């Protein structure tokens, strides 16, 4: 047991260190939680997507993708163009996404091609590539826009007409476009999308003459209709038509949903048990259900503590943005279960083995890069629509570094990264980001020290992770073969 605890502490040393650092800095900053927590939730909404876009290349064995900067640049080119064309609101945002995607697919493809020529030094290559791309980016924004492509818009362009201004205000265009999609709209669109998807799948099954599980389909459609119908009840409609969700309500809904879900499972379990005794080993455990329900009750009870209550009513969640983040987490998980994801994992473990197994290594790596670049560009758009202004020549420069640092703070490494680590990392890293200037002011009388400190942390944590990775790589051949095989096996399981 003692050894277990020691192992746990050792394996999570980075996370533990940062938890201590965050708690210490928060206390030192003397800021109330009612300030820190709402700020933190804003930053989670802004930054999660782009951090999550780093996971696929790690799985494909390409390390930390410093090339996401290029995805961010694609996003900014698209955003500039749609702003210039005067597209606004959520439709403008969707148009921007649609425009950014082909750009980033192309860029991702090119980056992937380049990385295939520099196998083993992707990270340094990606870093330098970011600086190189910065050169091209500035060329486009300073000379091509206005210089070669005639553009006439005094609010966007520099007075001479050649080159784009330093900052672009998105206040009247796409600011909060995604954040403020009302829940009602989401529900409505989700309902119709679900209906269409069900119809399509039925049609395909019918066409292919496969058996259709009418009972199950009917049940799911019924549930969907009921949920959709619920939204017509006045109080629920009012609740849903708000564009932001109060964290308090979110917690309450979550507790309620957990209870309903567990009760449902319990009922199903009873029904199934009665119907068929030979349904095979059932993994359902009623005790676990009870534990979940108990936990939900406790969490709900906690919301009545005044200190916590005050924090909870301060935070308003942008629902659509959080849904997008959740969808990306789901996508990362589902991708790993597909053939492509398995290929990526094999390539990540060993290119030789993958090659021998008939996987096209170069192609798989390029696909991983395209995914990552596209996701990064979407992430940058989510970031920019929340911030509301685009610093034309600065918004993308630190993207790669901060995203990678956040991922590493969550306990990820060069070879292994999961959704959980990404999310945990964002929470820790951004807590530190919020409080460190204030802590610096309290401790040294100067907020600049705190700012330098957080930059140092972001560089330092990357340097440490890279050094640890390289160190392991050197030390590994010296160990006995059996040990290393064990290690890679357990790694497969852990991923």
């Amino acid at each position, binding site marked *: 047991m003692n050894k277990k605890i020691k192992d746990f502490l050792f394996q999570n040393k980075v996370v533990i260190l940062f938890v201590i650092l965050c708690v210490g800095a928060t206390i030192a900053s003397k800021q109330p939680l009612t300030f820190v927590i709402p700020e933190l939730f804003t930053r989670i909404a802004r930054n999660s997507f782009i951090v999550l876009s780093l996971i696929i290349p790690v799985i494909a064995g390409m390390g930390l993708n410093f090339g996401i900067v290029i995805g961010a640049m694609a996003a900014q080119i698209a955003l500039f163009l749609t702003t210039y064309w005067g597209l606004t609101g959520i439709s403008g945002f969707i148009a921007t996404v649609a425009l950014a995607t082909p750009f980033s697919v192309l860029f991702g493809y090119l980056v992937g091609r380049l990385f295939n020529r*520099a196998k083993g*030094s992707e990270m340094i290559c990606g870093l330098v590539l970011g600086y190189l791309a910065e050169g091209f980016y500035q060329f486009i924004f300073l000379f091509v826009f206005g210089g070669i492509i005639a553009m006439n818009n005094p609010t966007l362009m520099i007075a001479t007409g*050649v080159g784009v201004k330093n900052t672009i205000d998105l206040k009247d265009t796409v600011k909060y476009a995604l954040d403020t999609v009302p829940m009602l709209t989401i529900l409505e669109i989700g309902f119709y999308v679900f209906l269409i998807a069900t119809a399509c799948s039925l049609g395909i099954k019918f066409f292919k003459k496969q058996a259709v599980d009418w009972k199950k389909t009917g049940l799911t459609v019924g549930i969907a209709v009921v949920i959709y119908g619920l939204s017509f009840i006045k109080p629920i409609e009012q609740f849903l038509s708000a564009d932001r969700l109060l964290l308090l309500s979110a917690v309450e809904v979550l507790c309620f949903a957990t209870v309903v879900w567990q009760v449902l499972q319990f009922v199903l379990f009873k029904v199934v048990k009665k119907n068929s005794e030979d349904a095979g080993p059932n993994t359902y455990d009623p005790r676990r259900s009870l534990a979940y329900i108990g936990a939900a009750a406790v969490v709900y009870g906690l919301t009545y503590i005044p200190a916590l209550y005050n924090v909870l009513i301060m935070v308003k969640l942008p629902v659509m943005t959080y849904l997008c983040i959740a969808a990306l987490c789901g996508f990362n998980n589902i991708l790993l279960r597909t053939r492509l994801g398995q290929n990526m994992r094999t390539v990540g473990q060993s290119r030789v083995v993958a090659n021998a197994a008939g996987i096209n290594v170069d192609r798989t790596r390029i696909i991983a890069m395209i995914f990552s670049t596209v996701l990064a560009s979407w992430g940058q758009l989510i970031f920019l629509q929340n911030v509301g202004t685009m610093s034309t020549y600065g918004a993308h420069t630190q993207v790669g570094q901060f995203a990678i640092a956040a991922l590493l703070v969550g306990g990820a490494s060069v070879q292994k990264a999961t959704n959980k680590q990404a999310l945990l990392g964002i929470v820790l890293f951004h807590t530190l980001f919020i409080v460190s200037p204030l802590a610096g002011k309290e401790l040294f009388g100067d907020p600049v*020290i705190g700012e330098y400190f957080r930059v140092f942390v972001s560089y330092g944590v990357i340097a440490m992770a*890279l050094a640890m990775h*390289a160190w392991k790589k050197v030390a590994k051949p010296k160990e006995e073969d059996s040990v290393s095989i064990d290690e890679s096996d357990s790694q497969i399981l852990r991923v």
Partner: protein
Amino acid sequence: MKSMINKFGLPRIIIAGFFLLLVMGAAYFDMNMPQLMGDVLRRWGMFGILALAMVPAVQCGIGLNFGISMGIVGGLLGGIIVIQLNIAQNPALVAIHPLFAGWAAILTAILIGVVLAVGIGYLYGLLLNKVKGSEMTVTTYVGFSVIAFMNMVWMLLPFDNGELIWPNAGKGMRNTISLASSFSEVMSKTGEFSIGDFSVPTGMLLFFFFMCFLMWLFMRSRTGLAMSAAGANPMFAKAAGINVDKMRLVGTVLSTVLAAVGILVYAQGYGFMQLYNGPMMMGFTSVAAVLIGGATPKRALIVHVLVGTFLFQGIMTLGLPVVNQILPEGNLSEVMRMIISNGIIIYALTQTKGGDGRE
């Protein structure tokens, strides 16, 4: 013809061609050629030693040393201490000759910088011996971290000379420290002569060549040869009884020391010392310079430093006025610098087969 291209290298031909194009452009726009050429020489001498720092690093096998910022930090500290002590204004020294006082100041700064750099370089070398095969990635980020760490140190160091700290009782040291009252241009001004507008910073160039000469001597010494052997083929060197790790350490320390010297020479030529994020990207500039000169991550010679720095700085010096004639808006020469210096690094990285090469 083809063998000549191979020998000279395609990128070098392109860049040399570009340089000639800029020279022609400058002539076409009727610019002050002698003055521009004098500037090229000045910047050649300024940047030369920083680029020279790549030679021992590459030769000892650690590859392109993006982490020279660590040596640079040592050099900057040396410079700051000298300004704090006010050596250049010491009446006894100024009485002999103002330039002599300046020399005393910069040599003291170099001495302090070298001592610090030896210590830093040794620790840095120990780290690099642990991360064989991924030195470039690690050194880049270790270099960045050191710069970020020093940002805090610059804020907190207890220096109080008026030249160093922010005026009106601000906290910490200035971003850019003027060397006008200490060792600004002492090397450049020593033995400087001009033909018309074409001025030659003799002292600085001589110092640069002297450093190259010392490096050249070292490379031919027993240790230098052993170091090159260790870098070129570690297995073979080990079999021949060379302590590879120790040789890598020697190379790293030398590289760091040269970076410390280099930044001080650069600062005196420029007239200012830049703290905080100023030296962050200097590693990239130096790496790009030797690569343009024909070096690879496995092999770098002094001639690569001489040619590369001249071409790179030549393009930078001529690029600004010439390009501004063509496109007056914005800062295209900065864009050009980014594309050339990072493009050449990418090119070099994709030419060598991987970092570890173990497939």
